[in-house]
């Protein structure tokens, strides 16, 4: 006996096996990200007054990435449609676009991570804070591009402050009490930001690898069994749409609030 309904839908359920599988997998993904989003809610509600960051992320870059993923959703759909109507060349073109968009997304994400990585909050011995991006550092001094603040809370709410000055500041190491970059350890917002977007970026990477395989070596199946190949494009497309959807939630939750 062979396993039935691997390609053709089962009459009474109306779908083929892999489609059931991917929807179930996506249900579990909803619960995975749901757990992380509920962590976001709980930690944000429980944060000390005035210490939840606003405006730490660049909305322009976030919008750019949102557009990139929205476009990739369209090209994914078109790639599947091209398979459905038997136009293999168009499929190749549209999924090439999908991968290019996905890789650009990851590139922008890397730039944003790097921007946080070199961003330092420096606590000075006189009680003030110096905050900005590291330009140079040696044994005796640290040079950043940023500003001094006296009230720590001014570092948290950037949105109500107007343009943030970016002056070149040279600080002697002997004046520094402690310094820390804006990594996940800096506060719970950044912990959530890196964890949520990191997990999402891993999903993007995974999806790109799968689409890349189906676009490259996996596309040989087109000649032997176009229907099964089209199903594969559909199933991987469903995953891709889900990953896009997660970003649609991440963007407002992290960038816009």
């Amino acid at each position, binding site marked *: 006996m*062979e396993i039935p309904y691997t390609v053709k839908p089962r009459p009474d359920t109306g779908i083929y096996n892999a489609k059931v599988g991917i929807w179930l997998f996506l249900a579990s993904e909803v619960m995975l990200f749901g757990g992380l989003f509920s962590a976001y809610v709980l930690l944000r509600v429980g944060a000390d007054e005035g210490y939840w960051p606003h405006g730490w992320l660049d909305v322009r870059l976030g919008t750019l990435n949102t557009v990139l993923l929205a476009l990739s959703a369209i090209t994914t759909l078109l790639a599947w449609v091209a398979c459905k109507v038997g136009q293999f060349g168009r499929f190749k073109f549209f999924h090439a676009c999908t991968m290019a968009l996905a890789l650009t997304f990851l590139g922008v994400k890397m730039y944003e991570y790097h921007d946080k990585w070199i961003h330092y909050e420096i606590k000075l011995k006189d009680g003030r804070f110096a905050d900005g991006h590291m330009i140079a550092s040696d044994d005796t001094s640290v040079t950043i591009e940023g500003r001094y603040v006296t009230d720590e809370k001014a570092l948290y709410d950037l949105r109500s402050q107007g343009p943030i000055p970016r002056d070149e500041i040279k600080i002697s190491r002997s004046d520094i009490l402690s310094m820390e970059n804006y990594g996940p*350890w800096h506060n719970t917002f950044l912990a959530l930001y890196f964890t949520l977007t990191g997990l999402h970026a891993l999903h993007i990477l995974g999806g790109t690898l799968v689409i890349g395989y189906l676009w490259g070596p996996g596309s040989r199946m087109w000649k032997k*069994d176009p229907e099964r190949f089209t199903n594969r494009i559909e199933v991987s497309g469903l995953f891709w749409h889900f990953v896009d959807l997660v970003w649609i939630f991440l963007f407002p939750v992290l960038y816009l609030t």
Partner: protein
Amino acid sequence: MNPEIQQFPPSRHSTAGHVQEHGHAEDAHHQESAHHEPNFWQKYIFSSDHKIIGIQYGITSLAFMWLALMLMLLMRWQIAHPGKPVPILGPVLASILGQPAAGGVISPDLYNSFGAMHGTMMIFLGIVPLAFAAFGNYVVPLMIGAPDMAFPRVNMASYQAYFLGSLVMFVSFFIPGGAAQAGWTSYSPLATSIPTHGQLFWIIGMVLLITSSLLGAVNFIATIIQLRAPGMTWMRLPFFVWAQFVTAFLLLLAFPPLEAASLMQLMDNVAHTSFFLPTGLAVGGNLAHISGGGSPLLWQHLFWFLGHPEVYVLILPAMGAVCEIIANNTRKPIWGYKSLVYSVLTIGFLSFIVWAHHMYMTGMGTKISTFFQATTMIISIPSVIILTCLFISLWGGSIRFNTPMLFALAFLPMFGIGGLTGLPLGFNLSDVHLHDTYYVIAHFHYVVAPGTIFGLFAGLYYWFPKITGRRMNEFWGRVHFVCSLIFMNIVFMPMFAQGMAGMLRRMSDGGANYSAAMNSRAGADVVGGLSDNMMSLHVWILWAAIALGIAQIPFIINLFWSIKHGEKVGDNPWQATTLEWQAPTPPPHGNFEHVPHVYRGPYEYSVPGHDTDFTPQNEPERPVGSKVSLATAH
């Protein structure tokens, strides 16, 4: 007859034909293995056959259950005789683990890690893989008349992820500092504050195990939805399949939040974030160097969001197996099949909204406690319905008392005790007294040990002839049963009393120091700590636990001996109705020679007017008397 029969178009023939037209990569693999004889590695290690994978899961999980039992025996020795070297095993431990077991004495740290790993192994490496993955893999596709699981290679990946995860857990005993010490619940900030790497291994192991159960759950649900044989309508599924179906949904939806929590705990450990670490946390008397702002309650919520459905993951497959065995050995239809099905679905749904009854003592608020108290009481209703249906099924049956049936029968009162003693824990007022005492240990062990594990033993004895073509030895099966039943109860019954007397569950000396201090302070006539009577029960429990361990030896020998030397039996030794017994023994790759067609419900025993007292599900409707069914037209 049920009018539903005619709804299913017997379209399998045409579809099967279509499948053969296209040579898929996946099928090519199958055909290849059919062409030339697969070698040992292909056949038994990297197999995608659901039966082999089921056996792999079964053997691995039984091995881990044995290991977890050994950990428990070592802990019981330390509780009964604190600070004394363990006889026989002590020197072995000292040579393997070094300092934590110096002189053969189990140090408190080692006790903690044994406690954490006993729980983790029994639940995640033992019972879930045995109940869900092993039985589910072997039996479910056969029961629904499918050739294999829907995604055979995903199935193989599921076992490999489980194996890797269990390997990581096992290896963690031997790293410096030993295995995780924060309990199977791994509460933060304790879990993050212990300065050894055991917790890191635990988290990585858990992520692998969660991946494994996720792949398994997707596969099971897809298989049950898509691969039912023609005529196998939903209400003709054996109850075991329903139980596995609901279990798969629980694993699918409840495990990911724990995966999310594990990722966050991993970040707390590795990237020094503060997801679960509150502001002002002090570790070892010093302020921890963290950003703070985290919430320890968040971990508990996410953990128990898995943790409570997990309880039903443990119990439902055993209930399913017990149901099959009771129907088979009472020789009559199960009473209230539809009530069983709707109850198990209700349990599945409700189990997602009872989790915080584990957290009454956390100070999360009385309103929340009241809500979870109410849902907890409601979920006991479908559980009682299931148990009642199984009890009533015994009424008027001509019961065959063979080994599987004995275990199945013992399951009912044992699970009953476990369930009913849970009620005082579900009420938040009585839970204040009983929380974190030995009462809790006794309660959930009655559910899982003489409950679930007896159900699984019943299943092992019952399905063994299908796997091997031979029956396990009946006499030694009974010895195993009687000894297990007696010693289980001597182990766990006294713990109710100890718990009500106030014995806390995590003390590595069984409360000796606490009692000594409290009793001397309170004076001669007032007993402030635990009485000598309560303390002396530890010794009883120790010896009963050792006897329980010894009682498993006949089972282990019987299991392996019977593979070669058991009594030879045919395809259907128990005269059962469900489809797995209508397949050849052992079932070949692809299971059935022809696509089975199903014409009737799962428990048609002792149907009046039939030659035999059982009517298999795939037996066509015969013209009985004047009634001629339409099904004969096919």
